[in-house]
């Protein structure tokens, strides 16, 4: 069951990703990206990361992508926007290079170079405590400092966005 689910979702994810990069209309592109993200959220649940899956849908698919759509609509972009292509010869090499990159990464994955040490948070342990609660615990204790820094980052980003978007400074 899990296996089938994984393959189905993975296929959806990849297909919508492919659509994204070949789609002329940015609005549709955004929708394909949302599709990808939702699929990834499903995969998160398969990986028993419920909190992350929820955040993925809420923040990513919800907030960020809505922002994208807003901007696309705001700028009223249509297909002709991509009229000028200064590097037409880069298309094929780019795709080939993508394949190469994938091959290289694949080889790395296959070569089992990546190893890590097992931790205590087994599925049973997490489930006994609840995924969300555990993350909350860790965030506000062990990872408090990065968390606070994140808040500063967001703050700065907000200011930056406002400054950039203002017509006159």
């Amino acid at each position, binding site marked *: 069951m899990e296996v089938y689910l994984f393959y189905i979702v993975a296929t959806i994810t990849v297909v919508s990703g492919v659509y994204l990069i070949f789609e002329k209309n940015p609005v549709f592109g955004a929708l394909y990206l949302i599709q990808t993200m939702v699929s990834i959220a499903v995969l998160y649940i398969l990986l028993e990361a419920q909190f992350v899956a929820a955040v993925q849908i809420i923040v990513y698919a919800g907030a960020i992508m809505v922002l994208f759509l807003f901007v696309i609509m705001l700028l009223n972009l249509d297909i002709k926007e991509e009229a000028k292509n*200064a*590097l037409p010869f*880069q298309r094929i*090499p*780019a795709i080939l*290079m993508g394949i*190469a*990159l994938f091959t*290289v*990464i694949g*080889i*790395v994955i296959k*070569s089992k*170079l990546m190893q890590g040490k097992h931790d205590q948070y087994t599925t049973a342990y997490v489930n006994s405590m609840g995924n969300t609660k555990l993350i909350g615990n860790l965030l506000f204790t062990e990872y408090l400092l990065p968390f606070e820094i994140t808040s500063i980052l967001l703050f700065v980003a907000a200011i930056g966005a406002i400054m950039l978007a203002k017509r006159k400074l």
Partner: protein
Amino acid sequence: MLNLVALILLFPLIGAAFNGTIGKRLRKENVGYIACGAIGLSFFVSLLVFCGLLLLPPEERLFEKQLFCWIESGSFKSVVGLQVDPLSTLMILVVTGVGFLIHIYSIGYMHHDKGYHRYFCYLNLFTFSMLLLVLSNNFLLMFIGWEAVGLCSYLLIGFWFEKKSASNAAKKAFVVNRVGDFGFALGIMLIFLTFHTIDFTEVLSAASHGNFEAGSFTITIITLLLFMGATGKSAQIPLYTWLPDAMEGPTPVSALIHAATMVTAGVYMIVRCNALYMLSPFTMIVVAGIGAVTALFAASIGLVQNDIKRVLAYSTISQLGYMFLACGVGAFTAGVFHLMTHAFFKALLFLGSGSVIHALSGEQDMRKMGGLRHHIPTTYKTFLVGTVAIAGIPPFAGFFSKDEILLESLVRGNFIYWSIGALAAFFTAFYMFRLLFMTFHGESRLDHHAAEHLHESPRNMTLPLTVLAGLSFFGGFLGIPGASAINHFLSPVLGGHGHTEIPGAASGGHHGAWLPYLMMVVSTAIALGGIFLAYHMYIKKPALPKKLAERFSLIYKLLLNKYYVDEIYDALFVHPTKKISAQILWKLVDVKMIDGSVNGIARLVRGFGNVLRLLQTGYIRNYAFYIVLGCIFIIVFAVFGK
């Protein structure tokens, strides 16, 4: 009294410094007084030194006063020291004496000139340099004086710098002299290398004490190099071309520098180094040969020149040739003697011509003169004395000295020297009387303007003329054959050789005692012949010269254009050098080749950079492409690298 010798140098230097710095603010008379006073004092001290020297016994007549160490580097040492001996004393007397007279003359001559103080500054500076030249006790110090007189000559020839011809002549004089100095400098270095000293006394005593064989190669080279310097300064072939042009300077300058003193420096130097020259028979032949050829060559040019000063200039070259001829045959005394008498009568002639030019408001072309003897009688009389003296009529000074040279050239040299000398003497008599007749006799050919202003020169100009005329008349008696005072006086310096006894009496040689007297008669006859020819051509039949010129137009043109030597030098040296420098060395080698290759390298680098720059397209996607490419490589390297 000999200790005073430094003062001789000091006075003119002070005079020059004074006039040079504040002369502009002084009144004209004062400038003249300072300059003349300086030389006058210098002359006075010279007399004292002369007396002091006479008081010493002849063998001890050598005095050196060392002032300070000039250059000392390792074994090379040059001390600023003054050497008083008969030769230098004679020279300082001539320089300060004639110089003093010419200074006085200049007061009148230069009176209207704006650069009055400048003129006297230079003139004093020249006297200083000339005295330094003759008083120096080593070669290098002499070289200072040698170059310094060249500088003063440069400044004074170019005194009227606004005239292009004057400044050209000045530059030419300096550069041609430099060519000679090139030899002189190398000679000094070779002397240092050979003798390990450049002090006159040491070098000459080493030379005369037989450390070197006669005809030694090194000595020959040394003497030839020194002689090269002499040809430059004393205007001998091939470096004489500057002297005629030097007449662009004020006339008293021509008299002082380019007749009486500076140009004789070469002769002085050779006499000074007689011990060296005696060691090299080859050089002596060269010296005598060049002297003889120059004497004739210059005299032949003098025959047809029309500029009064140029005739005198060529005459000077010719007379200097005589002096070298004398030195070359080993008759150094005769050379010095002629140097002295020549200083008197040539200074007189130049000053006389200056007086003429002054009277005619600057006219120098003899074709526009004539019949002046009634208008400027004093000048005429003194000029006549000078002309007779140079022509060699007894008992005037020139007769004795020239006769002695001719005699020596026959006795010590050979018949060729004598015949060249005699021919030159004939020419001399001819062109000098041609000059006299064209200027003072015959009909007046003056233009209107000049005739109006015609006047005799002021007293301060005629007085030096008179004194010099007296010297030109009596000067010869210092060296009458048999009882030659000058011979006797100079003998310590010349050490045996160069000192002439009556040949027949001294050696009982094959010539016999009658030879000197025969020679006197012959040379007088030659002179009279020249005078007669001049008289015939320019007084009796004034149309004759023109006819002759037409008849022998080729020769006439050749002579008139001074054998085209200037043109030949221009074509051989000046133009090619300029052309090669500008077209090949500068524009081709420097700009195209060296700079071109340097810039070429730069262009190459830039070209390479331009190619690399194409990678920098400005398209972000392009950059991203390279980033990914780089990433792939890094991964490949990280995974498979080991």
